[in-house]
């Protein structure tokens, strides 16, 4: 007969070693979290999250990989670092969110908040193209792909009227050096 804990772990498809791997990938000591909840209390996005930051940490410790990787929370984290400077154990939770998000992307689980992923991809695409972010191309490309032109056009026009959207890109001369940083194919490839 299996113990209750084993049943629970099986139900959640727990992988107890996963927490350690997230810790290694993030560079943060996730095992130190004792669940005080200061991160969740100060997080400006907590009320919109499906898994509070402190709960996410617990889920990582328990190895609930599926639960964490399918959550929207890592996509809503804006890396404001409020939790990072308040954590009594010095854990930078935004780096844990980064590591979890990277793994979700590698796992093909971009469905939690695809429009947020898309925005950051467009940002890096312009960096890969020119060496510097191009706010005009980034906004237009993202907005068209997201089907949000009607929503975003008024603010875009307001900026253009005030000559705040440069049309021509500013290019890095030695662009090959920058493209080399993007490494293997596919990362931010236009």
């Amino acid at each position: 007969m299996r113990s209750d804990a084993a049943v629970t772990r099986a139900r959640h498809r727990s992988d107890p070693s996963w927490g350690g791997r997230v810790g290694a990938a993030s560079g943060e000591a996730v095992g130190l979290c004792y669940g005080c909840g200061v991160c969740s209390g100060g997080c400006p996005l907590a009320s919109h999250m499906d898994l509070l930051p402190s709960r996410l940490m617990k889920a990582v410790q328990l190895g609930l990989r599926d639960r964490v990787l399918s959550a929207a929370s890592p996509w809503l984290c804006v890396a404001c670092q409020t939790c990072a400077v308040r954590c009594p154990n010095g854990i930078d939770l935004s780096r844990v969110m980064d590591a979890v998000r990277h793994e979700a992307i590698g796992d093909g689980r971009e469905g939690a908040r695809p429009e947020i992923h898309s925005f950051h991809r467009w940002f890096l695409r312009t960096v890969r193209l020119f060496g510097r972010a191009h706010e005009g191309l980034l906004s237009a490309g993202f907005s068209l792909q997201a089907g949000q032109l009607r929503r975003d056009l008024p603010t875009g026009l307001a900026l253009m009227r005030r000559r705040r959207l440069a049309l021509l890109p500013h290019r890095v001369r030695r662009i090959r050096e920058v493209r080399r940083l993007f490494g293997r194919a596919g990362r931010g490839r236009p």
Partner: protein
Amino acid sequence: MTAPVRPRPLALYPGCSLLSTGRSYLDSIREVARTLEIPIRSLDDWNCCGATSGHFIDPDLGLLLPARNLELAERQGVDILTACAACHHRLADAGHALAASEAARQKAERSGISYRGNVRVLHLLGLLDPALVGRSVRRPLSGLRVACYYGCLLVRNPRAGGLDDAEAPVVMDCLMEACGAVSVAWQGKAWCCGGSLAAPDPGLADGLMERVLGEARSSGADCIASACPLCQLNLELHQERQSGGGRPGSRLPVVFFTQLVALALGADPRRLGLERHIVDARAVAAAAAGSGLRG
């Protein structure tokens, strides 16, 4: 006895936004530097720091993109002067990682970057000493009530260290007071504006910005002073979305702190990009010129 270390010359790292949506930040920085006779050149061939996106969706770019700029600065024999909060955070964080971690250095070397760790990353707010600026003030911003807004990334940098206290910073307040303005006491100075979330999910970010603006309004501020091109843009676009361009009375100008410093130093308001603001900021310049903001 060691020889005194001579400070290396500063090279400005403007960052991508200052060439586009944050142009008035760059214009006003140039005016301030010119008036105070601070020689500033630009870092040659700099690239984007990756901002939030670099570390958000990629395990390496958050380190590698800023690392190339640090290497460039080292080769050019300069220290880096930052203006944008995100650039400052990313460059300082990468500099710290490369100094502290052999793994980070090896990762950078594999991408062709050899950085020995000799570059200081300094933000404008750390450079502009209030006492020094105060001595050069020609037109004090008398009576102007400023809500100094620091946002997140300038003051919160868990590894490299923030510019000031993470919860209750005062460096910009001191500078504004040195310029003759009144820096109002308010709770929102280090609250988050939503950052890069404002583009893909403006509805969500609007809630955060309304909190910041509401707090600034109830403090009785005439304007918000920002040290970040994204905070500044977000707070302006938010007000544009909320009011649809109408009800100008309830709108709160959001200016760059360097525009206020330049005005106090006697700069020509027409050289500060005030006409590029979405929420009319000319009243702020008029107040600084002594005509009074509240009639």
